[in-house]
């Protein structure tokens, strides 16, 4: 894809800015640098920074993977640059009309149970799970973005999901009615 025009870019912004900011934030740990990173990514795209790659006929998918890859690299650069310590992903605040603290606590008991469990995974497990289920990337796309091998991605997802299942069972046996939450 050559440099997109304003219309295309707006469409891409609309579609990907939020997922990308969220993803960047899971790496940088704070929203503002995540926004900077995503802005830089899009500016690179706008300036034709994405090489027209022959491989992959699906240009939309390719653009998506490219955006995630660039975002990830810049976010990691940012981290290395500004911090000796690498924050790991934690869910950002979920939108809520700010009820009282106690109510929040109770409500989140269930709503964020899953996010809390995610925290217990290793960063790389968490990252592939995010890319897979939050952003619907395929194994190969995840491999491209993270520069892992497809086998590694498969292994991370496998162990991550397994751990998650164990945690779910352990933490809330009565809640482990997965069929219910599928609905």
């Amino acid at each position, binding site marked *: 894809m050559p440099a997109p025009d304003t219309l295309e870019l707006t469409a891409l912004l609309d579609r990907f*800015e939020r997922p990308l900011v969220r993803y960047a934030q899971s790496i940088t740990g*704070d929203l503002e640098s995540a926004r900077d990173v995503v802005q830089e990514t899009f500016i690179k795209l706008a*300036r034709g920074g994405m090489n027209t790659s022959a491989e992959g006929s699906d240009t939309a998918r390719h653009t998506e993977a490219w955006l995630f890859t660039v975002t990830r690299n810049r976010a990691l650069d940012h981290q290395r640059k500004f911090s000796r310590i690498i924050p790991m992903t934690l869910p950002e605040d979920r939108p809520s009309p700010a009820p009282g603290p106690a109510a929040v606590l109770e409500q989140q008991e269930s709503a964020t149970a899953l996010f809390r469990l995610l925290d217990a995974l290793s960063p790389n497990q968490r990252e592939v799970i995010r890319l897979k289920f939050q952003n619907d990337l395929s194994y190969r796309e995840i491999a491209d973005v993270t520069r892992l091998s497809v086998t590694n991605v498969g292994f991370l997802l496998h162990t991550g999901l397994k751990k998650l299942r164990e945690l779910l069972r352990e933490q809330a046996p009565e809640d482990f009615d997965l069929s219910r939450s599928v609905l």
Partner: protein
Amino acid sequence: MNADDPKFTAHALGELEDITPAERAEIEALLASDPAAAAEAAETQALAARLRAELPGEAAAALQEEQRAAVLQAVGSPEPVSKVVPFPRRATVLAALAACVVVGLSITLIFQALQTPDIASLRLAKAKAKVPDDQVIVALQPFTEPEAKAPSQILSTPAPVAQTLQFGDLTVDKPKGDLANQAVQAPPLPPAEELGTLRLAGSNGYTGATTISGGKLQSPPPGNAPPGKPGVPATMSNSKPGVALPVTAAPLSTATGSSQFQTAYTETRADPAGHSDVAWARPIRRFHTPPNVSRDVQLATDAAGFDNLAPGSSSFDKIAENVFLPARETPLSTFSIDVDTASYAIVRRFLNDNQRPPSGAVRIEELLNYFTYDYPQPKGDVPFSATMEVAACPWAPEHRLVRIGLKGREIPKDQRPPSNLVFLIDVSGSMNMPIKLPLLKQSLGLLIDQLREQDQVAIVVYAGNSGCVLEPTHDKAAMREAIGRLEAGGSTNGASGIQLAYQIAQRSFIKGGTNRVILATDGDWNVGITNQESLLEMIAQKAKSGVFLTALGFGMDNLNDSMLVKLADRGNGNYAYIDTLVEAKKVFVEQLSSTLVTIAKDVKIQVEFNPAQVGAYRLVGYEKRLLAKEDFNNDKKDAGEIGAGHTVTALYEIVPAGQETSQLAMVDKLKYQSPSDDASAKPAPPSPEPAPKDAEKPSNPTPAAAPAAGAAVPLPKLETPVSANRGEPLPASVRKELMTLKLRYKAPDGDKSKLLEFPLTDPGTTWEKSSPDFRFAAAVAGYGMLLRDSNYRGQATWQSVAEWAHEGLGPDASGYRTEFLSLLEKAKALTQ
């Protein structure tokens, strides 16, 4: 092929791309023949469905309008040379809380718990150094009549300069009406009236050096905003010289609404990449991620980005040091007191483990306040005394160093009000280490020994679940028995435990007594980020009910220091780190009253510097306690508590007016207003070369600018300052003043603050004439700066710091100062 093969999972997820037909056939055969495998696959699919349903629901912020505009503007333009301009960052708390950190500490700290040099043996060493103990005792007794008794028996220096400001004999007329709360709407009132004059103890007798021209007790001033700067939002400037922000018509709308928020939570940020031209203005607040990572399967993948994570890490917030601020542009410096001492013990633990502490763990104010200083007891009804001393700054002899000391009223053991204590004890699996739960049990045993009949204790434990293991009781045997039974196991769910603990504390509330939740944990909480914020909110809420918090940190492998700092801060509490039984003894035996009994809350300090005398100033430490200047008079703004007998010490490094300094934080000239715009609000005519005035900046040493790179900035000396009110010249004595110290505090159960003011004039004291306590405090600050590799350490070296500490050792009855000397040795060896 079995269910434990990644391909099996891939198949369940419908990822068939990289599965060979043979593998696929094998998997499908397995699914058909093995019900267990089929169940596994179904479970995986159900989980996947749940993840697909719930993960995308996570909040995802968009870019800001300006950022989108900048992106669209870039369409078609060639790849640029310059970098993207970072946009002004909103220092929102939420963004800050989103940050989560694992410090790269590689373990090994664990099993060396009780190796800190024994205080007893230090005492012995000290005794050999010929410091008679009886003198020690005399010296530690608070002198109630300092003007009558020069402290020569205490201080061996001939001319002690410590200036004691007693404000005991004040008759405090409460101002009519609730001025503080009405302040915003109230019409302008005449300047605060003088309600009483301080009796100045010790100002004539033994110092002759510091002049004190009389303190005032004022009613809360009308209006929160200083005159002449109405409604100026505290925006965070984030400018890069020479680069115009590609802002379209969109205003920086974020700045106005949340200015107070921003300033309150702002920290400057040192830029390790050397971008000294970028002024960072946002909080670096990070939370800890649960350490389960360490127990996790560590994968052998060595991909980029996954290689920097050390398993089992403690979490320390970064601290960017306060910078020098020009007294003329930012004459007010405002901060909350802090009585936490945890940082000292944490640093000690690192040093004793032969490791250099991460700079984020070195909080200079906590190092300073670990030690008690010889400040006089307060007199009259006022809960604490204030002391100021100024002398040459040892690490920059051309500068002056001001020491501010507060001391809370001592309460004798037998007069301590009855206590209602709820121990909230983390018994999760991570506590199962010698320096955690066992030490915790011993520590609480020490505390129980100190309790009296009228004190009651309840115990709540939390792990995966929380529960009350001891209902409130006065029975010490029952307490000991319950403590003895504690065992570690399970995961950690701190939130519900905290709720239960506060519930119990409120249920058994003792009016007029000490009501306190004592949280003991390694801080390793598997709560999500939102839960952490709401937890903090809840704690702040509970603190209003009169139940305060003490946070005790244990262990080092995954200590969540930053969370405990915040909990103690929001919960009207204090935070101590227990690394040894000796430290437990300090907290629970020697300083029990300080730990338990709060005598004043929301204690804020505001210093106004006189630009005729002060070119620039720098608050040493207290980076996490900075307040906006408006917060000082805002009684809704939470601040630190002071306990019975607590001493609080703060240092300012001052560049005298007329001196040049290369370290001054300057901001760029304003684009839309000339410095003379608000000259009417200034006490002086504009100087020939006016420095740019940043009216939007918070008054305290918050970030807006990083030190200008190397450029020496001349500090204009003011001519005759005139009174801000009447336009008349100030009296000569006032013009000579270095600064005025203002204090606000509330009674522990009050919600209206009282104001106290004390001016300070610099008598030109040399280092040689400074008091031992002054020297010791300077040594502690030097130690902190060296450990942090501070840009401001000046001439400080381990050698010189040790000399200052020796000079300031004093009687040292407790042995802590002597221990400090041994830590200096360790630090010196480690850093060289």
